[in-house]
């Protein structure tokens, strides 16, 4: 029983440790997701600097056109619906995406992407869809963060279900500084709340029990075989 209990404890410890870093178990076999870093992590190898992007959006009849702005390396895409801007008095609207040349790491937040300044010469009146790409050289981000000044406080603007691997999506009604990351002082959101009536804790318990249940018969049978060997040895002597 001691062995089974140790196995169960180890399985639980693993589940907790793996939960602390998304995506969980990771053995690095997938090809590294290409990413142009402002501040590359040590394991990144050769690196190209991130690129900026510019888009000119037409205004027809006082309504801005639907369009997307993106960086030339595709690491940031922001999409606008028709009439997304307050286009009063404008015939075109310029949108710029510029990677920051520094890597702020605000307290309580760990960024896993570059920080980008997204600006336009007209304010938004409808939410824009923002997609940030990230690399598998860092843990998966849980949120997109926004600030009006990179030195000021950053706030989470959440994240929607990602349509593509290694991307994080959200919407924004403001321009400013954006980066993807996760709260550094606590596990990523999505953590299962034990006792909250969810199915997942039950699934976790069943799976851990499965490991133990598979291990106990092996251990018992091995112990039985050992005992038989010992008895046979005693009989001989």
């Amino acid at each position, binding site marked *: 029983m001691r062995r089974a209990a140790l196995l169960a404890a180890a399985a639980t410890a693993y589940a907790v440790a793996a939960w602390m870093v998304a995506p969980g178990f990771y053995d690095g076999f997938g090809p590294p997701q290409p990413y142009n870093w402002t501040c590359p992590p040590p394991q990144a190898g050769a690196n190209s600097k991130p690129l900026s992007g510019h888009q000119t959006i037409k205004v027809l009849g006082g309504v801005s056109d639907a369009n997307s702005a993106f960086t030339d390396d595709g690491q940031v895409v922001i999409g606008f619906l028709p009439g997304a801007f307050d286009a009063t008095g404008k015939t075109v609207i310029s949108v710029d995406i510029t990677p920051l040349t520094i890597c702020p790491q605000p307290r309580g937040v760990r960024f896993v992407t570059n920080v980008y300044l997204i600006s336009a010469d007209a304010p938004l009146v409808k939410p824009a869809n923002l997609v940030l790409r990230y690399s598998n050289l860092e843990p998966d981000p849980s949120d997109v963060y926004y600030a009006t000044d990179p030195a000021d406080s950053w706030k989470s603007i959440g994240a929607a279900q990602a349509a593509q*691997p*290694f991307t994080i999506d959200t919407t924004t009604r403001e321009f400013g500084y954006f980066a993807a990351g996760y709260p550094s002082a606590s596990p990523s959101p999505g953590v299962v709340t034990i006792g909250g009536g969810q199915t997942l804790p039950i699934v976790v318990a069943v799976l851990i029990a499965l490991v133990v249940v598979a291990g106990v018969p092996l251990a018992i049978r091995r112990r039985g075989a050992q005992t038989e060997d010992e008895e046979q040895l005693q009989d001989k002597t």
Partner: protein
Amino acid sequence: MISALKSAHPARRAVLVGSYVLLVEWSRALIQNEPHMAVAALVLGGAALALVAAGWPAERLGLGTSRLGLRILGGLALGAVLLLPAAVRSAAVPMLPAGLAVAAVAVSIGEELAFRGALYAALDELGGAPLAIVGTTALWTAAHTLSHPPEFLGAVAAAGLLLALWRWACRDLVGPVIGHVIADLAL
């Protein structure tokens, strides 16, 4: 080399096996990052790791066909436990390309034969099960320092501990091999 290892003092054997395994793993991690070298590094690295298990009796490595059904069941369960946090969390997980999948299988088997097979047996001979469990977990974690971001090393260590405890509790390596292969194929 194998006969020299077999005749070596247990302490020397454990040091030699541990050093060899670390050297192979670190070399693999460095070569793997070079362009177009990932598959070759994984396959050759897996083969080089498996080599360290040559000469050991299958029983000492935890291999065998007795109670095979239970061993396989155990492997499936280990795979499920290893993958569960990722399966619960990930919304979009990329498929592993076929070439990399084969390479991932090769290196998973090689790692299990090396860490929970030969290294475990060498450390077990030297200082018993506690040294084997702690030693293989420590070297397994150290072996992944060049291939994994530091944030992942806690999960790597915990996975190593789980697999080593299974190896000890069930005297079985088939389960860890199957569990490790499943987990690597899925991510």
